[in-house]
């Protein structure tokens, strides 16, 4: 791909793994060169093109882990190994890894996707990583075994800790006073909870936001957030806890495909 061109690069799906009833991981053989927390625009010809985070990356491949929610993701679920999709990106600003720190990752549902890549990269940088991956019930837990120190939480207690990821995080931060930083991705209400827990423990954190995207590269303004007017696809999707506090719509409302506001 040339410098200015955002035209999708066509790649066959190399491998598909069913992670949970509603999440599949798609592997592509392509050197993407992304940072953890960045995303690609995934084009499913004749259907749609959507932002998806990178859940794993090697020197010659990358993974996307996708939660089935609607038209595009359903169409992707019907695709087979060898079928072709288009990839543009990587886009956005990812997580900042500081070497040799003690960090905690808090993922809710499919939000654990970018955290897996972050965890692997952080371990390479000498960090001690604790990964909290939460879901409603045991069968929905994403990446149970991906990282060495993983805590599972489920709302119904069918696996791991019974309760929310934020409760588990509070427990860990109370026990381990040497935690340096927390990273989170998942439902916005959960992330808002994580920001609050971190504020209480005076620990810095980074969050990863989702908003409706059209271009993905900072032209259309569809993913802009109030009151800063910055675009998530360019200035984010990852923000520091301090920035998140300035984005007053965070945890409150979002705009849809047309630009109409809805409460979260």
């Amino acid at each position: 791909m040339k410098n200015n061109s955002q035209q999708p690069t066509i790649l066959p799906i190399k491998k598909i793994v069913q992670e949970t009833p509603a999440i599949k991981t798609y592997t592509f053989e392509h050197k993407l060169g992304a940072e953890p927390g960045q995303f690609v625009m995934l084009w499913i010809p004749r259907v749609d093109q959507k932002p998806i985070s990178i859940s794993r990356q090697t020197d010659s491949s990358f993974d996307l882990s996708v939660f089935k929610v609607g038209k595009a993701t359903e169409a992707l679920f019907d695709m087979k190994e060898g079928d072709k999709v288009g990839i543009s990106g990587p886009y956005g600003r990812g997580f900042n890894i500081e070497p040799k720190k003690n960090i905690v990752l808090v993922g809710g549902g499919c939000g654990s996707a970018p955290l897996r890549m972050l965890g692997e990269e952080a371990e390479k940088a000498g960090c001690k990583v604790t990964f909290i991956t939460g879901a409603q019930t045991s069968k929905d837990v994403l990446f149970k075994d991906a990282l060495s120190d993983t805590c599972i939480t489920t709302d119904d207690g069918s696996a791991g800790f019974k309760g929310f990821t934020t409760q588990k995080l509070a427990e860990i931060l109370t026990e381990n006073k040497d935690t340096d930083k927390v990273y989170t991705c998942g439902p916005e209400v959960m992330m808002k909870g994580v920001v609050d827990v971190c504020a209480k423990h005076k620990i810095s954190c980074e969050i990863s936001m989702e908003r409706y995207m059209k271009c993905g590269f900072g032209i259309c303004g569809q993913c802009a957030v109030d009151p800063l007017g910055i675009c998530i696809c360019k200035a984010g999707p990852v923000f520091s806890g301090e920035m998140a506090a300035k984005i007053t719509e965070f945890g409150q409302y979002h705009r849809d495909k047309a630009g109409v506001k809805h409460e979260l």
Partner: protein
Amino acid sequence: MNTKITFLGKEFANSIVTASGILGVTGATMVNNVKEKGVGGVTMKSVSVEPREGHPNPTITTGEHFMINAVGLSNAGVENSVKEIKYYKENCQAPLIASVFAGDIKEFGEVTKKISEASPDFIEVNISCPNVEDEFGKPFAADPQLATAVTKIVKENTDIKVIVKLSPNVENIGKIAQAVEAAGADAICAVNTFNGTLIDVRTREFVLHNKFGGVSGPAIKPMAVKAVYDISQAVKIPIIGTGGVTTGQDVLEMMLAGATLVGVGSGVHFGGGKDVFKNMMGEIKEIMEEEGIEDLMEMIGGVKSDD
């Protein structure tokens, strides 16, 4: 050195305005364009009476020298847009150009009346979007009579100054410009995007979901400059010159061709990120200094043509 521009009686800090459809969905983004990025004014994304989702993605992509889009005029509807404009007005002094479109003549009147409640500084009338032909047929800008009819009804429904945005996909853009001037347009914006498409070789699919779209970016600049020049020779009303502008030099070129203000859209991508407007202004001031230009307004229509 003066870089201020007076356009239809209102003052702009410089001659650069964002083009409609670029970073113009929310009031806060447009405030950001002025306060953080340094544009002289902003144009809002085109709005219709009712909210529209637009086409599925891909809606916007680029090649090395062009952008192509078929967003399909998505917008939150005029009622929500009035709120976004009010937010802008409470937080920013720089002039705001609202942009409206409609599927038929009567609706143009309705959307104009409603958007006027927000008191935008100007109303731009988008009669030239090429990406909704399946729905609306050929753009109104392709026919002098239709362009006249739209201009008239818009003027009847507002006291705010009206800018009509023209399409380059016509045989004689000067003729259309004369028609809308005669119908009462206060200014002209040109150009909107050129008809085009993009085909993916590996999948043999059209890349844009809508198949066809509008081409913008550096590749269209020579055609856009010519269109602006042709319009300037055909009418007396001021022009917002738009199309392929990515540098300060491009801004000055557009002004020499006859533009009072210069719209920048795709240049946000091609011109080098978030500092694009500041870089343009830096370059403009440098050239003004080197060439001994005291007042930026001197550039308007300043191309030499001795014939």
